């Protein structure tokens, strides 16, 4: 052991004293900042999702994912040394309720971050008040392109990020897949609201560019909460479409497919595309009843990518909740980790610094590498399309073969003209 002589001792003491003096008054050296927790008390994350009504399952799935991430982070020492706390509220799919939740979280509960938002209208409404609340919001589901293109890019609301894919996946990527089909006559059976219209429009515009020979011959719009798709199928099928494009989701996607089977749609049409068809609730809901060979996708599918990280995530999720992860589980999970990474990179909870840390951040997540695009705060990552196939290992359909298009090839790019 090395002995410390008097001179050394003096030097060190002075050094420490100087360090303390500097530390209190002036800019902290990097090493000092790292050792202090960024916050006294826990870092608080306010989550909101749809937790009641027929779509309440979505919120629960999202909660499971986010909860798992918080538990993992806390057992490993928290975010930058601070424990993490998460609380959930029901957004009820109502923008005014969601705005109230956001205000409660930030102004009353003391949230440092917000995550969640299922409905597009909810994402837009909450995004709109983020400059006033001045905390970072990471959207985990709401898919409208207006969030990244209008709110973030055009209006410059920098507090909003989205970790899940936008409607580009549903409309544009679908068309890039469909261009290789021997299908000329397309029809749509889709939800009678903004999401349905936008995706169908993107699909048509993109497909027409690749395939000037295709025709769009029929469309039927189903109200939110439709239980009988007979009239919609009946309106479309007599026009003899060769391909059907639908963005029905949740329980309605299940109902539509069951009824389309009864009407013999899958014998008559050559192709069926549903960008929400690979969501875990639809896969599990239909089980072996899901016809084979349909083209489906979602926002994360639990077997893709085939990496150690993703396999481990699915395993941990199953161990904790005894379920397969839904895509909203993965986006909720990754949103919490994005917060952790950004805070630790920024070394502070200061919103402007966290935003800087998130912009351009590259993140290893179960869904693969995600990069938050600087201009519009949209996470860029790949989600596969695939055909429904049977696999003895699972009580539901899996996707095989997969078709993966690089996200940068089909995401709309700024400046969104």
């Amino acid at each position: 052991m090395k002995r410390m002589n008097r001179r050394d001792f003096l030097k060190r003491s002075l050094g420490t004293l100087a360090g303390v003096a500097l530390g209190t008054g002036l800019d902290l050296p990097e090493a000092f900042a790292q050792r202090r927790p960024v916050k006294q008390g826990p870092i608080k994350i306010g989550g909101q999702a749809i937790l009641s009504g027929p779509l309440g399952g979505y919120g629960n799935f999202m909660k499971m994912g986010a909860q798992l991430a918080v538990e993992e982070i806390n057992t490993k020492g928290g975010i930058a040394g601070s424990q993490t706390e998460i609380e959930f509220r029901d957004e009820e799919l109502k923008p005014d309720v969601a705005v109230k939740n956001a205000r409660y979280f930030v102004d009353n509960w003391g949230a440092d971050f917000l995550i969640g938002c299922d409905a597009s209208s909810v994402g837009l409404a909450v995004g709109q008040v983020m400059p006033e609340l001045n905390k970072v919001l990471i959207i985990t589901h709401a898919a409208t392109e207006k969030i990244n293109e209008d709110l973030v890019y055009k209006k410059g609301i920098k507090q909003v990020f989205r970790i899940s894919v936008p409607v580009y996946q549903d409309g544009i990527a679908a068309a890039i897949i469909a261009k290789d089909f021997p299908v000329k006559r397309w029809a749509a059976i889709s939800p009678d609201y903004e999401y349905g219209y936008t995706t169908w429009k993107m699909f048509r515009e993109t497909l027409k560019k690749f395939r000037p020979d295709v025709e769009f011959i029929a469309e039927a719009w189903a109200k939110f909460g439709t239980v009988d798709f007979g009239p919609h199928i009946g309106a479309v099928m007599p026009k003899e479409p060769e391909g059907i494009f639908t963005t029905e989701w949740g329980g309605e996607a299940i109902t539509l497919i069951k009824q389309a089977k009864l009407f013999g749609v899958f014998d008559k049409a050559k192709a069926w595309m549903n960008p929400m068809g690979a969501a875990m609730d639809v896969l599990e809901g239909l089980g072996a009843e899901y016809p084979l060979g349909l083209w489906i996708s979602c926002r994360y599918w639990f077997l893709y990518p085939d990496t150690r990280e993703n396999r481990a995530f699915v395993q941990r999720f199953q161990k904790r909740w005894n379920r397969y992860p839904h895509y909203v589980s993965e986006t909720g999970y990754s949103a919490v980790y994005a917060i952790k990474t950004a805070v630790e990179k920024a070394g502070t909870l200061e919103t402007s610094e966290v935003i800087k840390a998130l912009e351009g951040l590259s993140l290893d997540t179960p869904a693969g590498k995600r990069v938050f695009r600087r201009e519009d705060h949209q996470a860029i990552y790949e989600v596969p399309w695939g055909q429904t196939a049977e696999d003895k290992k699972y009580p539901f359909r899996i996707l095989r073969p997969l078709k993966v298009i690089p996200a940068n090839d089909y995401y709309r790019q700024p400046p969104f003209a």
Partner: protein
Amino acid sequence: MKRREGSILNIILILLLLVGLALLPQVASRFSIYLTIQILLLSLLAMGFNLLFGYTGLLSFGHAAFYAIGAYAAGLILKEATPSLLLAVLVGTAVAALFSLVIGFFCVRHTKIYFSMLTLAFGMMVYSLIWKWRDVTGGDDGLIGIPRGTLSIPGLLQVNLHSMESYYYFVLIVCLLSTLFLHRLVHSSFGLILQGIRENAERVAFTGISVQHYRLLAFIISGAFAGLAGTLLPPLENTLAPAVAHWTKSAEPVLVSLLGGAQTFAGPIIGSILFLVIKESIVRHTEYWLIWFGAILLVLVLGFRGGIVGFLYENVLTRLRR
């Protein structure tokens, strides 16, 4: 003498409430102010509704339509035309009144369940219209980025309402003036006739009064106040979506009036306070808030006959006076 004691107690209570409301921004957090604005809006909507329900005896299940029409008219003016709050509020209210005239014209020919069903149908028609008319209303994505606007009367006044506190005072003043107006209205001969119609429409008709005209007038005033409440919403939220026109929104004034006491003037106000405060407290403790909220409302509505205000009035005030 006994009567006077009651009114002195009333006045003291009202003064305390007013002072509390006026001082609220000094003591409360931004969220509490926001919640209070929501309570004020619901009270205004419910008071308008209750003119028709409690005083005239007509149960409307479509008042969210007028609330939404006022809100969309105001939102569109603020967003597309001019950020003048006063103009948005006035025009929004006028548009709502106009729609009340047209819809009321068809509805007041009927009473009881037929009236309720008709208002429900018209209400959902307005909802569908807002949902479908995407070029104007933005469909289900709604109107986004509505500015709060400024309160300006040329040559007189120019107030920036950017902060939650100043907007709160604006809403508070509008609500107090409306409350005063409605209070005078229901205690005027017009209000007495409405109550007469509620008790026995035939007898009123025999005195030579046109029951339908009075019902229609009550309908228009009621719709106009619902619309006025609606115009105050978009500047608060900065966004507006069709959910405000849905029948579930129409159910709120019905519930709060029953909760507070439909036969009392203060009933809808007290009901609104309880409704939002109870919901807010439950939501903080559980995500399965609906079942608790429903159960508590059920107990309150069933347990307090005539609503909470009515119940207190009957059982406490009368006993105090004895």
